[in-house]
């Protein structure tokens, strides 16, 4: 660790990130880098919608959270630099605030990712909000992937009674429900990445 430069500290994204990071979603007339629509029309793979709310320690839905997703494509491959050069390609990245939806949900329209390296299909997740000084990492797994989930090496590191907090409920028709609890008995598992 000699001669290492100290890492810049993290700070909260604050309550007013919307016009900077999620402008279009909140009705501002300019662009944002990524939004809730991750899959493009021509992206191969099964279409899914993943939605949910973020709850604070008092059980109240958080209206100023921002969720970011990073995912593999249907064959388990992460997009690389070349893919990002093509604005119309599948980029595997999503970003959605909770304050623009009447029910304070985040909603992602995407394709189900493929598993890779022995890991079950999952979405990599960053959680940010006012009152959170460091972004929190978690994952969204899928309830209808029981066999793959049982063999997943990351889920295996999570105490069994808490694994359910990482699994989205399958509602049928490609719809998945995944809530994030910041605190409480059902506190979502967050990862030290």
């Amino acid at each position, binding site marked *: 660790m000699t*001669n290492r430069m100290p*890492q810049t500290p993290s700070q909260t*994204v604050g309550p007013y990130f919307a016009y900077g990071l999620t*402008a279009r979603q909140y009705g501002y007339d300019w662009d944002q880098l990524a939004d809730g629509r991750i899959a493009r029309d021509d992206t191969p793979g099964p279409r899914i919608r993943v939605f949910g709310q973020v709850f604070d320690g008092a059980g109240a839905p958080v209206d100023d959270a921002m969720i970011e997703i990073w995912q593999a494509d249907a064959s388990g491959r992460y997009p690389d*630099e070349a893919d990002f050069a093509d604005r119309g390609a599948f980029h*595997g990245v999503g970003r959605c605030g909770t304050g623009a939806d009447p029910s304070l949900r985040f909603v992602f329209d995407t394709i189900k990712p493929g598993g*890779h390296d022995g890991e079950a299909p999952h979405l990599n997740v960053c959680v940010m909000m006012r*009152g*959170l000084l460091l972004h929190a990492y978690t994952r969204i797994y899928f309830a209808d992937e029981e066999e793959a989930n049982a063999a997943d090496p990351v889920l295996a590191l999570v105490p069994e009674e808490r694994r359910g907090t990482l699994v989205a409920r399958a509602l049928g028709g490609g719809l998945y429900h995944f809530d994030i609890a910041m605190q409480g008995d059902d506190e979502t598992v967050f990862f030290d990445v």
Partner: protein
Amino acid sequence: MTFTPRDYAGQPKWIDEGYKSTGLRGPTKPLVRIPLGRGELAGPRFGQDWVGPLDTDLTRNGRVNGEPLGERIIVTGRVLDDFGRPVRNTVVEVWQANAAGRYIHKRDQHDAPIDPNFRGSGRCVTDDEGRYRFLSVKPGAYPWRNHHNAWRPNHIHFSLFGPGFASRLVTQMYFPGDPLLALDPIYNSAPPGSRELMIADFDIDTTEPEWALGYRWDIVLRGRDATPMED
């Protein structure tokens, strides 16, 4: 290949007594440490094509019928990893209040004027030396009701991806000599010795004569490391 560990000793805690909202929002259970796989080592890679010509110039990208009010500033610096290597071709997003301390965010109710010619957001992509550069106006202080007579110091919000999902960073840049820093729970949530890393330097060489004051601020992200992390 992995990333150097997140240096928690130099980072804020999840729950901070001074910053009230953390009480119900910071996780309370221990984090589960996971090995970094492809999903953590890779990350979004927005390139130069993603930045429009006015995205780096906050003095122009919100203009309707004139110049934004306030002290013009140039904010520049390098994005480095903790080995001191430049982080190239990575997107830097910024947002900030106007010179009066008012955000254009629809929920900001602070009774200070909105500047019709200032939007307060932009982005750029670092060059081969890891450099970024924005033109803007100095953001004003504003009240935030965390405690009696609570005012946020002047600051600019920064969002960076770096080379992987694991190197993601959202932080704030502060200005030198600001008397509100000593009183601000968000700034002070970072431990002494680390919080100072968020303060930019006034730089006369970056300052442009007859036009704008210059500030330099380097940002250090976790670096790619060939040494595997210890368990």
